[in-house]
Structure formats: C-alpha cells, structure tokens
C-alpha cells in the first residue's frame, strides 16, 4: 500500500515538474496536450465537414450510398499506422499527416449517422413540410437537417472519443500529442510516469469532449428530450445509430451495408 502511494506521488511529481518549461514552448506535457486537442478536433471537424455534404448526396441519390459506405468501411480497415506512413511522402511531418487519415476514419461513424439522421425524419413531417409550401432547399435546411441533429451528435460523440484515442498512434510518425509522452518518453526510456500521465490525460480529454457534446446537444435540441410516453422513433434511431457506430469503432471491422427502414423519397418535390 505504501509502495503504491509513493508511486502515485512520484507520477504526480513528474507531471507537475514537466508540465511546461518557460522559454521552451515545445517542451513539457502542456504542449503535447494542446497538440493532441488540435489534431483530434481538426480531424473531427474536417470529418464532419465532409460527412454532411456526402451524407446529403447519399440521401438525395440513393444509389450512391452503398458504394460510398463500402469505400469508407474499407478505408477504415486499413491500419492507421500504415496510413500515417503512406501520408509521409506527401505531407511530411506536418499536422496533415495525422489529420487526413483520422478525418477519413471518422467518416465510418459520421456518414451513416448523417444518412440515418436525415432518413429518420418521419414521412408525415416531410409531407407536411411540402404541403406547407417549403421549397426543397428550405425544407432541407429548416426541417430535415434540424431533425437529424440528435443522430448526428450521437455519431460525433462516438467519433470524437475514437479519434482522441487514435491520435496517440500518430506519435510513430513524430506527431500524436499525448501519444508522444507514452511512446517516446515512456516506452523508449522504460519510465512509467509519462505513460500514466499520457493515458490519464487522454481519457480525461475524451471524457470532457463527450460531456461538452452532450451539453451542446441539450442546447441545440431541447425538443429531443423525450421524457414522456410518446418517446418516438427519434430516440430509438439515436440509440440504434450510436450503438451501431460504437460497435464498429470498437471492433474496428467494417460493417456491411445497413438496411434502412422504409422507402423514402427525400426532398424531391
């Protein structure tokens, strides 16, 4: 017991002593943490920026979805290390070497959620929007996209946790934020304090990011807090989408094409 306590105090001491070095902005734990956040958040944002238009296209042109989803799944099956090294000749040791593969990986979760989110807009809601006189574009922006938000955020939660965890692997190509603590300082020097600090901060970052997304969802979609008997298909779709995404993110195996409920004709007049 005493040994464990001393060990924990030792780790903490190391963490405090190496938090940052005045005058040396690239040394210490803090720069690794900010780098980690930069790489992870940039990848997620780029992933989202690609997934939304791609998802819209897949809903609009149904035939597009199966091949695109297969492509995204196959890409996910490529080991991340290989992809980082493949990027090196083109992007060197810049952030993009990590960000491009990580952003591509988020698509495996975000794309199906964008598509499912748009598809789960109930048909009677869509019909009502047409009958009220919404033009196709207005219907998309003011009805279908807002209704899809909870499912998209559910996907973002899974994607951000997965990405934050995966950034560490990029330390093999000299990036990787907190991963560098684990790899360079920890394993190479046979020293456990940086490993423990690196892991704890990664977990903490994932936890805080997830909490922020939950808060964002509450703020953005107050209507989605289904607290009564009519807990309709919205929540089920969210649960289904995030469960499916989590299963894939966890196992790392690409899922086959998913069956989607109902034949719908999205925003065609």
């Amino acid at each position, binding site marked *: 017991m005493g040994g464990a306590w001393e060990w924990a105090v030792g780790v903490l001491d190391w963490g405090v002593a190496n938090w940052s070095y005045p005058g040396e902005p690239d040394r210490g734990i803090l720069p690794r943490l900010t780098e980690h956040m930069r790489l992870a958040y940039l990848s997620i944002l780029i992933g989202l920026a690609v997934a939304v238009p791609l998802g819209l296209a897949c809903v609009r042109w149904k035939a597009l979805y199966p091949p695109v989803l297969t492509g995204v799944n196959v890409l996910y099956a490529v080991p991340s290390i290989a992809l980082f090294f493949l990027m090196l000749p083109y992007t060197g040791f810049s952030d993009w070497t990590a960000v491009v593969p990580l952003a591509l990986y988020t698509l495996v979760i975000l794309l199906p959620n964008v598509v499912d989110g748009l598809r789960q807009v*109930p048909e*009677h*809601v869509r*019909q*009502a*929007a*047409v*009958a*009220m*006189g*919404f*033009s196709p574009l*207005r219907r998309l922006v003011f*009805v279908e996209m*807002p*209704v899809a*938000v909870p499912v998209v955020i559910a996907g973002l939660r899974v994607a951000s946790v997965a990405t934050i965890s995966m950034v560490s692997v990029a330390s093999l190509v000299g990036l990787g934020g907190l991963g560098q603590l684990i790899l360079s300082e920890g394993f190479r020097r046979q020293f456990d304090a940086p490993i423990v600090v690196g892991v704890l901060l990664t977990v903490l970052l994932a936890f805080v990011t997830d909490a922020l997304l939950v808060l964002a969802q509450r703020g953005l*979609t*107050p*209507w*989605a807090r*289904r607290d*009564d008997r*009519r*807990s*309709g298909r*919205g929540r089920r779709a969210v649960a289904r989408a995030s469960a499916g995404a989590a299963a894939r993110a966890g196992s790392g195996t690409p899922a086959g094409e998913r069956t989607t409920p109902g034949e719908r004709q999205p925003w065609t*007049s």
Partner: protein
Amino acid sequence: MITFEGAAKLYPDGTVAVDDLDLTVETGQTTVFVGPSGSGKTTSLRMINRMVEPTGGAVLIDGDDIRGRDPAELRRSIGYVIQQAGLFPHRTVRDNIATVPLLLGWNRSRARARADELMELVGLEPSQAGRYPHQLSGGQQQRVGVARALAADPPILLMDEPFSAVDPVVRASLQDELLRLQADLHKTIVFVTHDIDEAVRLGDRIAVFRPGGRLAQYDTPENLLAAPRDAFVESFVGYDRGVRRLSFFPARDLSLREDVVFGDGTPVTEAAAVARGKGEPWVLVVDGDRMPLGWAAADRLDRAPAGAALGSLDLAPYGHTFDVGADSLRAALDAAVLSPAGRAVGVDSEGRVAGVVTQDDLGTALWSVAE
C-alpha cells in the same frame, strides 16, 4: 370553387389511381371524399395543391388551371392537415402554427400573435405555446395541425384523414370542433376519410370513390343514405344506413306523452290506476325539479304497499335521454332501444323531463320519414 375536369392519375406501372374525375367542390362548403383504400381519394385531394400532378385532365381553382401556379406558392395559400398531424418535432407549438405566415414573410411578432390567436380558436391553452409536439396528446397535436393549416387564413383547407389516428372519443370532439369552426369560418374544406359516419357527420356533400379511382356517387349525405346509386355505394354506406339517415330528422316533431310521468311524491295507487286505465306497462318517476329518477313497472305498482309514494320504490334506471330541442330522431331511437322500458325519455336543454315517447309513437315517426 375547385373543379376537377377529367382529372386522371396513371402511374408508369399501369396503376390507375384516379380515373377521369369530374367534380366540383363548392366554395364555403365541406366536401368529403370517402371510399375504401385504393379508391384514389387521397390522390385526388393532393392534386388540389399539386402534391400529385394529374397525368390527364386538369384541376381548376376559381376557374384558373393550377398548373399555372408555382407549387410552393400555391401550397401556402391552401391549408393542409395530415393524418398524424405532421408537426415539426423541433419547433414549439407556437412556431409550428406560425410556419406558413413566416414562409410568407410576416415578421416574427405578427406571426406569433397570429399563432396565439389560433391556439385560442382551436381550444388550446396559452400555456402550451412553448411546448414541443411530443409533449402533447394525439388530440392536442391534431388541434395544432388544424391551427397551423389555418394560420395564414387560406380560403381552402385540405384535410387528409386528419382524425383517423386518435381514439373515438377524441375523434368525436375534434369533429365537433371542426363543425363549430366551419360554422364561423366558411372555408372551402375538402376532407378525406374512409369512415362513412365521419363523412355523413361533417360533409355538406359527399363524394364516394370506388376502387380503381372512379367516382361512384356525389351527393348530399341525406340523399346518399336515402338513395345509394348502386350496390357498391349501398354496401359502402352500410346496412344500417336507414337508421343513420334518421340523424337528419329532428326529434322535436315527436309526440311526447306526459300522462305517464309522475312526481316521486305521488301515491302508488294513483299511478297504478292511470297505468291500468291506459294499458301502460311503465310509468316514469321524476323528482320535484322534473329530473328523471327511473321507471316503475305497472305490475310492481300493483304489488306495492298501499299508501306508499312512488319515490320509495325500487326504480329501473331511465338510461339515456334525448334532448327534444337539439337531438335527432336517431338519438330518440337510440334512447328508446337502450331504455329498460323500451321508451325514450325526452328532456329539455336543462335535463328536465319534457315527456316520454312510446314505441308506437316512435314507430309512426320513423315510418313517416322513410322515403
């Protein structure tokens, strides 16, 4: 006025949804499209706001072919109520109702004021303005749906099976509400249902569609029940159409008998003498305010202890009553059938007994309206 001129909808796979429809919907009236599924009634309704484009013929509103109008713009001038309300789940009740005014470019405060006005019109509490659709009951959602359709005060209202997803009690109250609204607003309403009772209740005119998208009969509800044109219409309006037709005849013409109505203080012997004298098997007992208490059988009166008052006897329940001023012959018949005495108790609007209708008198009245 909405005119269908040979309107048809033929799908590429050969399915005929609507076949050569000629029909005129009168302004300010409620016209009901009724028929089994696959009879083209909803398709015909949706031709009016161009949610379905006819493959043949034309649809005209006030003489103008609607193909000349921009679809989105046309739809903003036509209210639409859909089966499951179709409310936008991410918008509050108030913003749902304000949808079309906002699309028309009203400013926010005017649109919201209009929404509040409509909530009152359709019987929603102001406190529900900030709620989301999923927090409302099915009936309330449908009220919001009606309010939303009326928001921009469109002259035409299309209603596509609006009340079929709610339970019968709520449905009846929504139907009453619609009748009340229509009495004030005089919209041109086209209402689609598969329920002939709903059609008879709400429609000024009824169009019966048969499978294959053909119009079988277009008539007033009364004529439809009295003279269905063919075997299909007859079977669709139902075997009890004769009884249902009675709802078009007022009960006020029935002859009411007061001689078999007695106060609860009346001695049993007096009531027994009257019953025996007239050959009446039942007398109705009322209290001091003429509220009904129940039926007393004549043979029980004979066996009752001498000197007792009617109020001290065990009475058979009087069952349903009918309002002589407001109800129809159908309600009177219903009251008679459900009464243990086989007689209907007629009451005034306050519930006080106006008299009873015997089977003979009821039968005479029924025969007089039959054909």
